[in-house]
């Protein structure tokens, strides 16, 4: 029942004006204007037809009252058949036109929204949870479509009411005034009920969320409960929550159950009034019997449209909010802007940061006056506490974020002047939680270079630890990795990502090392793969593993956005500065010395 729709909607702060939204939406409908016009005409015809029905019957009744044998009455019956068939056919046409028009608009809107979103820079993705963005592209556009259909439905109903009222006014205006007076009363009560229903629903939704959370815990904890033989205890808890939720839902159910009975009773009042006043009028001869009949029929016809109207405004608002969310997505401005589109040959990989300032938010500077030079083929390990700036440096090189001042040069060229697509093709990036697309391992490995042969990939895979890692995949290279690579372990995903980079053979390699949960054999293999990459590219590694740090040519120590120490591991340790402290905090437990002492140390406490 459309009356109960859109009650759970959260309030959404609107910034776009209604008028602007409507105009913009209308623009999307322009290519479909032929269909929209036909639908509009159809709507008018349907309204006329629907109004005509009771009018014709009332005429018929009037005729029959005066002359039972009147042949016109039979003509009217025939006309009714015709109108019935016509209304249905025209409605068919209307729905078909509408569906196509709305379908086309949805497609356009969606495609534009997705294309715009894919083009946004990474700062956008930091601020917006991807789930919400997806829902704007898929669900909000859907919602807007439903509202578009709703508008024509309501328009048809309102038009029908208007036609009837006009006819009624011409017949007997004082009775019509009574009818007109009932409409606002009805509307107000309906609106009041919607507000009541909204409260009840909101409260019960909280209750439902609680129950679901409790069920989730109860179900997830069953194994532990069985482990410790505490089944009775958690059953009792579950039972309690179950009953509480039931009580809350019953309360809500009652509130919602009262709505229509009350409205029906009110209709009863209205009808009774019409019977009494109208009957008296007809008795006096002030109104024809047929006309009186029309009054009675019309009351019935107003009921549904009024209910629809009471929900209409908030549904429209809902639709406009949905449209706004989609437009906001499209309109977001990119911060990363290139000044040129320079095509570049194969890069050597010389990178130079010159007095770079960078901040994510105006008040929190991340890099200040940052300078760093990287030679082609060099491998660099970035170390520092969280927030020291390691990730930011990497994100600036890949042009995922825009820096505020200073210069970044690649092979002597200003980074901002390069063609981004070309440039990015020459970078190989593996992030901390490697992402894989659903498909096979081979599909993922060749993502950046689709034309690489299966044999080449196979040969490459076997260079790592004699291909032992392939045994851990159920179908070898043809194993399906699942959504986001979820069927593989973290270590396996890292390996596949590194393979991808090896196939890509970029000029610059960037790695944000995973920190957790990889078994020693896989780690060995990852190190091997890394060595292969490091030998061929300029590499920048945010290092969390001791072995990675020691495999690099140079260690760069960062603190609060500045380089404070540089060099190789032994020299930095000897210096006893910030690096030594970092080592002690993050890397000490990865050293051989630590492992050899582990048992003694543990027993000694």
């Amino acid at each position: 029942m459309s009356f109960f729709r859109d009650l759970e909607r959260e309030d959404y702060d609107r910034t776009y004006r209604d008028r602007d939204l409507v105009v913009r939406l209308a623009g999307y409908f322009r290519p479909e204007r032929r269909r929209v016009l036909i639908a509009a005409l159809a709507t008018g015809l349907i309204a006329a037809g629907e109004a005509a029905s009771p009018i014709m019957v009332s005429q018929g009744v009037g005729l029959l009252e005066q002359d039972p044998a009147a042949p016109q009455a039979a003509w009217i019956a025939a006309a009714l058949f015709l109108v019935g068939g016509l209304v249905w056919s025209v409605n068919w046409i209307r729905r078909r036109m509408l569906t196509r028009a709305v379908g086309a608009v949805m497609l356009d809107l969606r495609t534009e929204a997705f294309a715009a979103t894919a083009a946004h820079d990474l700062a956008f993705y930091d601020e917006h949870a991807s789930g919400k963005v997806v829902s704007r592209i898929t669900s909000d556009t859907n919602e807007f479509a439903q509202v578009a259909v709703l508008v024509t439905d309501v328009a048809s109903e309102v038009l029908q009411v208007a036609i009837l009222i006009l006819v009624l006014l011409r017949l007997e205006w004082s009775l019509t005034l009574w009818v007109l007076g009932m409409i606002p009363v009805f509307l107000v009560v309906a609106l009041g009920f919607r507000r009541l229903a909204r409260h009840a629903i909101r409260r019960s939704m909280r209750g439902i969320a609680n129950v679901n959370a409790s069920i989730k815990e109860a179900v997830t904890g069953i194994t532990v409960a069985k482990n410790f033989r505490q089944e009775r205890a958690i059953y009792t808890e579950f039972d309690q929550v179950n009953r509480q939720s039931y009580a809350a839902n019953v309360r809500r159910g009652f509130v919602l159950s009262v709505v229509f009975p009350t409205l029906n009773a009110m209709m009863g009042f209205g009808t009774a009034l019409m019977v009494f006043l109208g009957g008296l009028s007809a008795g006096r001869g002030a109104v024809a019997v047929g006309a009186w009949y029309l009054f009675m029929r019309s009351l019935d016809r107003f009921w549904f449209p009024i209910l629809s109207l009471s929900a209409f405004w908030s549904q429209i608002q809902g639709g406009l909010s949905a449209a706004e969310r989609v437009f906001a997505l499209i309109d977001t401005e990119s911060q990363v802007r290139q000044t040129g589109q320079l095509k570049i040959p194969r890069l050597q990989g010389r990178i130079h940061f010159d007095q770079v300032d960078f901040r994510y938010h105006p008040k929190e500077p991340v890099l200040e006056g940052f300078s760093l030079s990287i030679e082609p083929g060099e491998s660099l390990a970035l170390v520092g506490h969280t927030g020291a700036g390691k990730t930011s440096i990497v994100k600036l090189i890949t042009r995922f974020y825009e820096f505020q001042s200073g210069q970044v040069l690649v092979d002597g060229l200003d980074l901002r002047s390069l063609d981004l697509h070309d440039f990015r093709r020459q970078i190989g990036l593996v992030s901390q939680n490697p992402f894989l697309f659903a498909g096979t391992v081979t599909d993922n490995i060749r993502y950046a270079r689709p034309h690489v042969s299966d044999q080449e990939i196979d040969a490459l895979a076997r260079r790592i630890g004699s291909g032992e890692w392939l045994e851990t995949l159920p179908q070898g290279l043809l194993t399906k990795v699942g959504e986001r690579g979820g069927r593989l372990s973290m270590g396996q995903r890292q390996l596949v990502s590194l393979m991808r980079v090896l196939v890509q053979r970029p000029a610059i390699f960037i790695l944000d090392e995973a920190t957790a949960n990889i078994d020693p054999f896989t780690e060995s293999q990852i190190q091997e793969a890394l060595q292969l990459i490091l030998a061929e590219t300029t590499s920048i590694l945010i290092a969390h593993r001791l072995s990675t740090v020691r495999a690099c040519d140079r260690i760069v120590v960062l603190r609060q956005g500045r380089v404070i120490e540089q060099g190789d591991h032994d020299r930095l340790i000897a210096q006893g500065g910030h690096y030594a402290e970092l080592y002690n905090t993050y890397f000490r437990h990865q050293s051989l010395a630590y492992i050899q002492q582990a048992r003694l140390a543990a027993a000694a406490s």
Partner: protein
Amino acid sequence: MSVAEFVVRLPHARDHRSAARWILSHVTDHPRIVLTTFVGAFGNATLAAAVPVLLGQAFNLVLQGGEIQAGLGRIALTIILTQVVRGVLQLGRNFGSDLLGQRLERDIRQELYASLLGKSMTFHNLQPVGDTMARATNDVREIGLMFNPGFNLVIGSANFMLLPLIVAPSYHPSLLLVPALFTISYAFAVWAYLRELRPVSEEVRRTFGEMNTQVSEALDGIEVVKGHAQEAQEVERFSINASAFRDAFVRQGDIEARYLPLLLLGLAEAGSFLHAILLFRQGSLDLGGLIAFMGLIQLLGFPTFVSLFAYSQVSLGMAGARRILDLILRETQLDQNPTGHSGPMRGELEFREVGFSYGEGKVALSGLTFKVRPGQTLAIVGQTGSGKTSLAKLINRIHDVSTGQVLVDGIDVRDWNLASLREQISIIEQDVFLFSRSIAQNIAFGQPSAPEAAIQLAAGQAQAHEFIRGFQEGYGSIVGERGVTLSGGQRQRVALARAFLTDPRVLILDDSTSSIDSATEDEIQRAIFQASQGRTTVIITHRLSQIRWADLILVLRDGRMAALGTHEELMDRSPAYRRIFQRLAD
């Protein structure tokens, strides 16, 4: 000795032979509500039909002429009265069906949960939590919706179609014709419509899901997409999916546009008018009767406009019921062996030529043979999929071996009393689950009556005491969203404390994590050391410090033993093992 698996006795027996019978057995628990609903539905329709009848009377009154005020007044009052009573009856129908739905939801959830609790650990090990959750929440909700608005509207519409059939003949028997024709053709039209619509609705749902999945994936992996400059390709892929959705959407709209009952209603109105005129000319029907009859036909509008989604709601609800019943009936019952060996365990573990596979799938383990003396520590190492976790689950009989034997204290685990076996073996999983209650309650979970001193002692041994005291509420801090969030290492230590309190003889620890900082690593080392003192410990681990110092190391590769021995022995014999430590030796 009690049976190992738990049983809740619920008050009513249930008919599990089919989903429909099962739902019915629940419904018959509440006869008064069912009665109220049906009475309400019938009463509502009857009193709704009263209005056109009274209108007909009013018309006749006016046509007669004369002093009509009193008569009209009486009719008007009757209308008001009947509609108010009708409101009450309709409330009975609405609330009755809603209450029934809510009660069924509550009772079915209870039945499902009790049944889950009674199932073996094997079952829970195989059954994905997400799937259970979906059934316990969504499918149960569908059942509730099946009653209200589902059955509510279905019964309501049925009555609204019934009333004209009952009342019309009271004016003239032949007037049965038009409503009867409508009812028959309506039933057929709805059946045909739903049958045509179902595959297309499925298609709409499917294409929407695909579109959603692709967008989700592209946005989650946007770094990779941008990093490889693949934006255009992703947009192309999206376009294809979105167009497929649009096509399904249009197909669905076309079917909806053809909704026949709309035509049938229009024809019924016209037909009823024609029929009434003929009777009127004959003199078998007066004008009031004609008007009343036309009004009765209008009652058919309710079923025409409202009942569509009600039918699909009913079928969705039944589908949900089937899924829930399926879960309740599923079982993998291990032999409880109540007469088996029970008694204090020394903690000697032995595997003899053990082989294992999950159902008819790939063989997970084969040819495992090793022996662990009481109090020793066994470290199990291997890559993903090598069978480490499966091995652990054979020890406390979450699964049974396919070939070979697992022996505890020289006795096959299948010959042990299951309860006695499990009481003395404790497993700590990789993803530690803690209940959303206080830390103290979590630690004392296995022994709810444990005194505070014992809890703190256990926490101390697990190196958890310090960080627990660091929280504002200390041991009283609630774990979870509404309280404190614990890191992986902290959860592990709380789980260790939990295990300490129950003092198992054998501890199986899935320690597949690594520490980010050395200070935490120190604590975990100490905690595991304490835990393994005086008990046989099987630890699945990545930590080289644990592997190095275990009494026995087992390297698994592809379900087989690749190497077995002490650290020194393996350094000598296994090149792969040696490589791991050599990497650090620069």
